[in-house]
């Protein structure tokens, strides 16, 4: 008799399984979990804290907040950040002061560990939400984050 109860039980479990997938088949039109990616570019918004790439925000006067302290360069485990710096004369005090010449960021080496942004004393760098980083030439992944002609915003001290 267990032979037949086994068959009955087997068929019952199979039908239960089919009812689960069948339910999804009928409701799938509104419940698709995938996104049609390039089409939804306009509506696709990443979270605020999303780690896409390191960017250096500039204000309207083309001023950034990087003092060139190099803490990020030391904190980075992969050598992703290279700061080429110089010493310039501060106009107000007339003292010699460190300033950045180029803030070089190698995106190709970055592991998005956020240690540089965590350690930055002046919040000069932060996360950008751009995630479309594919390029045909890998040299394009090496970026200079400070814009040409930009200078340190006044009042920023480390």
């Amino acid at each position: 008799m267990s032979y037949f109860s086994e068959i009955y039980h087997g068929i019952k479990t199979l039908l239960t399984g089919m009812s689960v997938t069948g339910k999804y088949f009928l409701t799938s039109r509104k419940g698709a979990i995938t996104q049609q990616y390039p089409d939804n570019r306009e509506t696709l918004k990443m979270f605020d804290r999303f780690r896409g790439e390191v960017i250096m925000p500039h204000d309207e006067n083309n001023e950034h907040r990087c003092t060139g302290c190099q803490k990020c360069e030391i904190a980075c485990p992969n050598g992703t950040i290279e700061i080429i710096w110089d010493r310039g004369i501060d106009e107000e005090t007339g003292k010699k002061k460190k300033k950045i010449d180029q803030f070089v960021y190698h995106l190709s080496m970055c592991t998005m560990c956020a240690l540089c942004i965590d350690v930055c004393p002046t919040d000069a760098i932060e996360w950008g939400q751009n995630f479309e980083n594919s390029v045909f030439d890998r040299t394009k992944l090496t970026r200079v984050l400070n814009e040409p002609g930009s200078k340190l915003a006044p009042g920023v001290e480390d």
Partner: protein
Amino acid sequence: MKQTTTIDKGLTEPYQINMGPQHPATHGVLNLLLTIDGEIIKKVEPDLGYIHRSIEKMCERDSYQQIVHLTDRMDYLSSNINNEAVCLTVENALQLEIPERVKVIRTIIGELTRISSHCLWWGVMGMDVGALSTFFYGFRDREMLNDIFEETCGARLTMNYNVPGGLMLDIHPNFVKRVKKFIAHFKTKIPEYDRLLTQNVIFQKRTKGVGVLSKEDAISFGVSGPVARASGYSCDVRKYHPYSALDKVKFNECLKTEGDTFARYQVRIMELWESMSIVEQLIDNIPEGEHRVKTNAVIKLPKGEYYQKVETARGELGVYVISTGTKNPYRLKFRSPGFSNLSVLNHIAVGGKIGDLVATMATLDLVIPDIDR
């Protein structure tokens, strides 16, 4: 030319076949050298090293803050628990007093990571035994968790949210709301997992009595995690050596005694319920306070040896640090669960069919970067 004489003798001859490193069932670059007689497996030799990145050696180069992000890349499915392990080691060595808030948040995110890892495992388990739709159902639920992680930590997989001394950022204001929504959603989905796969007669036939691991063997092979608990070996680090806020919550250790593939499956499904209950106990009363204790910019551990173990989704992860008092560890050793769990594969798969091997391997839940490091 010498003819093979096997047919004359009426004997069969075992042959070797390479399963992997590019094979759908090995979930990564694991090469299994199988010795098969027809369909029956005579020997399984795992061949490692395809994704060895010398993480332990890199740790000797890096500072203690930098080590944390490397552990993301070991067992990437329980990355937050790995981070926590390193941070706990450093904090214990420095004898830092960690705020309650940090402990609770770490535990919540750790348990969510476990759920997310088991979700992925469930999907892949179904796919390995041939039910292809489970993969998407598992990923659907995992996606909600990944969104929670992304909103709070900034990354979906390699989170690097813990730092020695606390958390990199405070939790996102939406965190509690989203986690509650997920718990409510997921409570309706696990019964569905059961209806679709667990009680399915084909699935039960495929897994029951397959790849049996006895309790004695589990202990002598050093197996840990759900694999060991399915053999009746009570070894939950969360129970025996509670860390973070785990000593404040009530949960049961999921134990089974059969030791077969189906028992391992059931233990993981039970762990989903337990992890959810842990999160539910903590989510409503996250204490207020600091999310981070100030540490020195350069952390130097006092001279000595330190060991900390945690329970990842796969088992016991141990972090063993020898410090000579400098800013880098002299030696850092990870005791990864996957390596020990893989070592039983030859023991439990021999005598089964190729299909059994795939099902067994699915419930060992191997993550190859965790094994190779």
